[in-house]
């Protein structure tokens, strides 16, 4: 041992009989700071941090800016759209646009109808998709792979392809294919003398039934994706949970309701959030299944209210702003839902571990 090491090594002092005190010689603050911050590594890290932060900030700007411009333009009055100096901040703020939309476009009625429809569909879809996903994840039966392929197929076929046939199916609703439908047979469509019912098909257009039927059978909008997500989630749930439930005398369904559902709440909230918001902003199914005579839904409120109809100089801009305000009023309730459920979104997806 040379002198250098002894000098730097901790000094041990005996304070009392049973107690010692160790004194370290600390590196001076300046040296520590220099070693920490004045190296290439730290510089690179700081640059990377700044770059990353600016990048994320920029992309956040791209996402949020359209929302801001919608909000700003919704408060602008007619004069603001002609004035070239007015941008982003309204000069003569007004609530006329909101008032006109609420009164003339029946906003609250549409809101109520859509809330009912979306809640109904989302609850049904979440429940049914977790049921189906659980069946695919935990049970091996002969056709399970083939059936899962069919689920993927329902996801792949664009619903536009089925536009006409969806409309026809639910306009002349019948159980079965073509002439061989149940109602057609009972209603005398096949044999004139054999007539039990006085109709050959049911018109389900303009009711909630088509969407309810599609939801209950796991065929609704993007339900294939939900089934896939739930299946991946349930695959990650350890089998021991169910085995111990079986040993305690539970059947498969009781196990599902008592054991599996409580632990899969975050995932189910994620699916619910998707189902709810995609149903909320959906305009394909609502345009297929509802027409002018049907209940008013949110897509119907996107039109220019009569009192705001204008041949003013800034007409295109003003009308676009009104449409944007309609859009804004449609998504406001969704934003509230999103803020509450947002943390489940990431959590649920993370836990699902959609791997392979």
């Amino acid at each position, binding site marked *: 041992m040379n002198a250098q090491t002894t000098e730097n090594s901790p000094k041990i002092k005996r304070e009392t009989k049973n107690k010692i005190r160790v004194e370290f010689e600390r590196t001076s603050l300046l040296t520590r700071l220099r070693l920490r911050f004045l190296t290439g590594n730290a510089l690179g890290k700081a640059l990377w941090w700044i770059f990353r932060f600016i990048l994320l900030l920029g992309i956040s700007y791209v996402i949020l800016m*359209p929302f801001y411009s919608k909000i700003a333009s919704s408060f602008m009055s007619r004069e603001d759209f002609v004035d070239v100096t007015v941008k982003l901040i309204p000069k003569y703020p007004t609530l006329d646009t909101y008032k006109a939309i609420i009164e003339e476009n029946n906003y609250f009625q549409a809101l109520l109808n859509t809330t009912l429809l979306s809640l109904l569909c989302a609850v049904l879809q979440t429940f049914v998709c977790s049921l189906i996903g659980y069946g695919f994840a935990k049970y091996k039966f002969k056709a399970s792979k083939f059936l899962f392929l069919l689920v993927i197929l329902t996801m792949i076929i664009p619903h536009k392809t089925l536009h006409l046939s969806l409309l026809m199916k639910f306009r002349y609703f019948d159980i079965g294919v073509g002439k061989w439908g149940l109602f057609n047979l009972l209603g005398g469509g096949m044999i004139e003398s054999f007539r039990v019912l006085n109709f050959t098909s049911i018109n389900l257009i303009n009711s909630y039934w088509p969407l309810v039927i599609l939801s209950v*059978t796991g065929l609704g909008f993007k339900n294939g994706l939900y089934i896939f997500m739930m299946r991946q989630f349930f695959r990650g749930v350890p089998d021991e949970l169910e085995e111990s439930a079986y040993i305690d005398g539970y059947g498969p369904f009781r196990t599902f309701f008592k054991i599996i559902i409580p632990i899969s709440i975050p995932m189910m909230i994620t699916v619910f959030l998707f189902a709810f918001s995609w149903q909320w902003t959906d*305009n394909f199914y609502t345009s297929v299944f509802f027409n002018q005579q049907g209940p008013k839904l949110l897509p119907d409120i996107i039109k220019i209210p009569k009192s705001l109809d204008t041949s003013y100089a800034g007409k295109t801009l003003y009308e*676009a702003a009104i449409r944007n305000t309609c859009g804004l009023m449609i998504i406001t309730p969704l934003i509230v839902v999103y803020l509450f459920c947002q943390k489940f979104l990431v959590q649920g997806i993370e836990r699902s571990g959609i791997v392979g």
Partner: protein
Amino acid sequence: MTKAAAAKKAAPQKPRRIASLDKKKSRAGWLFVLPFVIGFLVIYLPIIIDSIKYSFVELRTLSGGTGYRTIFVGLQNYQEALGGDPHFVRILISGIRQLIFDIPAIVIFSLFMAVLLNKKMFGRAAFRAIFFIPVILSTGLIAGIDASNAVNEYMESGGGIDTGAGTANQIVSMADFSWLFRNMQVGTELLTYVTNIANNIYGIINRSGVQMLIFLAGLQSISPAIYESCSIDGATGWETFWKITFPMISPMILVNTIYTVIDSFTSESNSVMAYIDQVYSSGTGNVVATAMSWIYFIIVIAITALLAALISAYVFYQKRD
């Protein structure tokens, strides 16, 4: 005597019990997926069959709206779609080319963003919340409103960032890029591609929300122990990404590529879909529109199968036990 008979009875029963448990389980499995099976057989299959049938017929509603009559016309609708319609083939080709250009952009962007958002950093929760807004809010109706949005364009005029309002404002103009790449012997095709992506950043961000979520989930499932041993061995972040993260995330790349293809060719903003919709709502064109969408469907299925085959040859699966 009775005991022996009981034993005789019990002996062959034992293997049957085990089989019956299996049977019970498979029956329970069928019960769980029963809603889908019923729905598929009763609703979806007839709808698909009808849809294929409609693409071969002419449709006439009976007077009084009590029913409809179909007249079989063979391949006439397909001929009409491919030959008779002046725009369909052109829009189809340009739409598919756009799709092929968009897929790598979306997948790479969402992977990059997921890697960024996966690191612990200042304001991560807030950024995540902002990044997933488009998944929830910019779909269906809102995308429809945004498709031709004069307000966003106006608000941004002079500012110069794309806000989904069309190509009026460009962040990067072609001239800037060609100046930059003048001496680099890069073809103009690549140049146009890069500028298009930069100018279309809003669309790409909007369409990569779900993919980002899937990538994030995949990143979370990589064991931190692997990263730790990597850093002990002295690997840099760059090396770690290419040697660990990338192979481990490659199954997700497959999933996301397929999801992106499906999502972008069924989305409202897709030009082919918009055109089919336009044909559908124009008078008697609805059967032709059905034929068009089946043609489109077959083409995209072919693309999906090709991409899946191509990528799955390079996918790395971690061995699981």
